[in-house]
């Protein structure tokens, strides 16, 4: 503004620039020939690897892998785990909010391959969707405005008054240090979530056991509290069993990196570990009804999300 009255200083020096300017002009003259249409676009596109990263992606074979077909290669909004680098945000595939594999007869979106091999199923639907290479930050939509293709997000139906859902667009950073793999776990009826370190277990059975240990006491305290805190004769409360096979009062489900909700146990452990983002312990009785409750909120599921 007014404070910067340096125009006079600037002018004489501009003249000095002319010889240099000529260099730039000759350069742009060359480029003028390729001005029109596609070749120019190609030139732009060549330089257009995402300008600031996709630090994790070196090759241009972008269309194949689901993870790389991202419009937002930066791990956006994960400042407090900046060391995690630029997480690649995968495009949200067709996701009914709850897709417990094999459980949802009412689901209008058959996607059988999904739980078994997440990558291939999504890449096949991804390939047919877009022709141009996705570009970082284009179209200019902030991340929290994405993932609106489904009428309702993949939030779970609430277990308690504190709806403990999680939205895809708000992937919370998980500590990805090599030492541990902590994922959040929430349980129906327990407002306070916990974290479990998946590296400490190598099988679903062990995980189920850990979940029991984590929540048994909390659940007991919860029910005691609501019962007026009258009795507490057992040590830590009732054991939580049958998490894996649907036989118990609760069932363990997880949310993968695409935001789908899946039953535990269908894929090999190591595959589960690589794709799990969050765990939930839901009341078994609510699993089939959940789908019913949400159905009329669903939109046509072949509209591509994100």
């Amino acid at each position: 503004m007014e404070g910067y009255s340096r125009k006079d200083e600037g002018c004489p020096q501009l003249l000095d620039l002319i010889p240099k300017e000529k260099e730039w002009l000759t350069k742009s003259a060359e480029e003028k020939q390729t001005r029109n249409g596609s070749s120019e676009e190609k030139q732009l596109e060549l330089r257009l690897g995402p300008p600031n990263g996709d630090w994790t992606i070196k090759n241009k074979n972008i269309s194949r892998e689901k993870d790389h077909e991202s419009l937002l290669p930066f791990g956006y909004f994960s400042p407090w785990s900046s060391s995690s680098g630029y997480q690649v945000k995968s495009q949200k595939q067709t996701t009914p909010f709850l897709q417990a594999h094999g459980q949802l007869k009412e689901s209008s979106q058959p996607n059988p391959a999904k739980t078994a091999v997440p990558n291939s199923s999504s890449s096949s639907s991804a390939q047919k969707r877009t022709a141009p290479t996705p570009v970082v930050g284009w179209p200019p939509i902030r991340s929290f405005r994405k993932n609106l293709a489904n009428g309702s997000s993949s939030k779970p139906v609430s277990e308690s008054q504190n709806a403990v859902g999680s939205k895809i667009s708000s992937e919370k950073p998980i500590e990805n240090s090599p030492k541990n793999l902590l994922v959040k776990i929430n349980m129906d009826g327990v407002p306070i979530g916990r974290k479990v370190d998946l590296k400490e277990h190598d099988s679903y059975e062990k995980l189920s056991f850990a979940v029991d240990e984590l929540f048994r006491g909390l659940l007991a305290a919860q029910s005691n509290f609501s019962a007026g805190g009258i009795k507490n004769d057992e040590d830590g409360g009732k054991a939580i069993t049958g998490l894996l096979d649907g036989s118990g009062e609760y069932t363990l489900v997880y949310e993968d990196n695409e935001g789908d909700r899946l039953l535990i146990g269908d894929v090999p452990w190591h595959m589960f570990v690589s794709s799990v983002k969050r765990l939930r312990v839901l009341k078994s009785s609510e699993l089939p009804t959940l789908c019913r409750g949400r159905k009329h909120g669903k939109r046509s599921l072949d509209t591509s999300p994100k």
Partner: protein
Amino acid sequence: MSGSDNRSEMSEDEELPDLGGDATHSSNSTAVSGGGGDQNYVSPSPDQVLENVLENVLCFLTSRRDRNAASLVCKSWYRAEALTRSELFIGNCYSVSPRRVTNRFRLVKAIAIKGKPRFSDFSLLPPDWGAHFGPWLSAMARSYRALEKLYLKRMSVTDEDLAIAAHSFPILKELVMVCCEGFGTSGLASVASECRQIRVLELMDSDIGDDEEDWISCFPDNVTCLESFIFDCVEAPINFEALEQLVARSPSLKKLRLNCYISIGQLYRLMIRAPQLTHLGTGSFSPLEIVAQGEQELNYFSAFAACKSLICLSGFREIIPDYLSAIYPVCGNLTSLNLSYANINAEQLKPVICQCHKLQTFWVLDSVSDEGLQAVSAACKDLRELRVFPVQALEDAEGPVSEVGLLAISEGCRKLQSILYFCQRMTNAAVVAMSKNCPDLVVFRLCIMGRHRPDHITGEPMDEGFGAIVKNCKKLTRLAVSGLLTDRAFSYIGQYGKLLRTLSVAFAGNTDLGLKYLLEGCPKLQKLEIRDSPFGDSALFAGLQHYYNMRFLWMSSCKVTRLGCEEIARQLPGLVVEVITRDREENETSEYVDTLYMYRSLDGPRADAPRFVHIL
């Protein structure tokens, strides 16, 4: 509305004016004992009187532009103004050091600080770039203990910052954070528990971590002065009982925007406790719980009917469209409606929108299609601001809205002042029509999502459309262009865009001429952000006489070279020229810089630049 930038005025230069030969006497001249009987009475000098008067008069000057002008008159005016300015606006947190600010202005009650450039919202800036609130906080904690209002936009704020702020500003009344990040619910807990006089707590479009902290419970029971509580962007479950109690003990609460973890049943409970609300964000607008069979659905309609003062409605984060009819009772009073998270179609929109006669601001998803926009056009004759967001933010999608919708809006909503329109296809004719039908346009942002896409009927570039906008909309100050654009479009902008302050360019232009037209033609240009356009060094040099008048220039993936940037830095020492480079492979070289971000600064290069930022 969330996030809209009302502060579109240009940032002011806080520099000490060079008053080499100012005409006034020093106002420190000692008083001369005047006439009169009392020997002990020392009547003030004329200058002193003037300064006293001035200070009292200046209190009435609120506009910062007026104050800036006053401060340039002479030294005593400068001093008086500095002592009496209570509201500060820092448009770029790196343009001036916190210490310089606190040295000059001593009595500050309200401060607004903006940090990162806007393109950071779209992941074009690596994390940890900067804009840390910490240094500002340190300075303010020392000098502005009586701070009442704090507004931060695109700043990086930590939990610790919030704890310190809560502790340092005991009478803080308003805290507004827009597009901020770096903190979580623990930080919010500090604010809630320590800021006992907080009246306004607004968190908008910010990325807030879930530390699983029950921050709502941290508001002390005796805090009853809450007037505005906006937390719709907080992606974490909250303690509903505590919230309900908070609302119940806040009789002055007028604005409440809930996050998506609040079910419609919970919304009902809150609404019946707060029928005095004027602004409501409805949360999920969905029964997150299973409605047990046999249990009666609550009468949401009556809850809305009871809110007779409601004028602004938003939320609908996970709407079950069946519930939308509950809002009918308030539609006739609404001046602002935000359905931009509600994936509804035209048929679902129509019964609502046809009742919204007073609507002035409307945000919506393109799922309503052109037909929905036609309904808007028919019903909302008073519309001033429209934003149409895409359900699918992809380049190659179907696109339910087009030039048809734009044309309809232009024909029905003649008072339109601001539009943001995402679409897949557009024509020059529709844009030209809007330029003629809506002469009051101040903000025109059209995003044709396919890059380089021409007029889909004529096949021509979109030059003529945007040209008509700058030519016919004489009040235009903000413009965003898209589609296939040649240098001609920029010649139009340079020729007619005399009031233009903010311009956003992406994938446009042919040669350096494009940028030259802008830099030479638009005298009021303050904020220029360009990406993926073939503008190079010679264009950059064309702006040398203008850069000190701008808040910033952003150019990413253009054809600017490092040498060019260094030359600019050399020529203009008052600019901070940041070059941001991404990591590359060994064999991958580019003669062009990835990102150039430059801005004027009184205090030189910042000390907190990360390693990927080179300041030239």
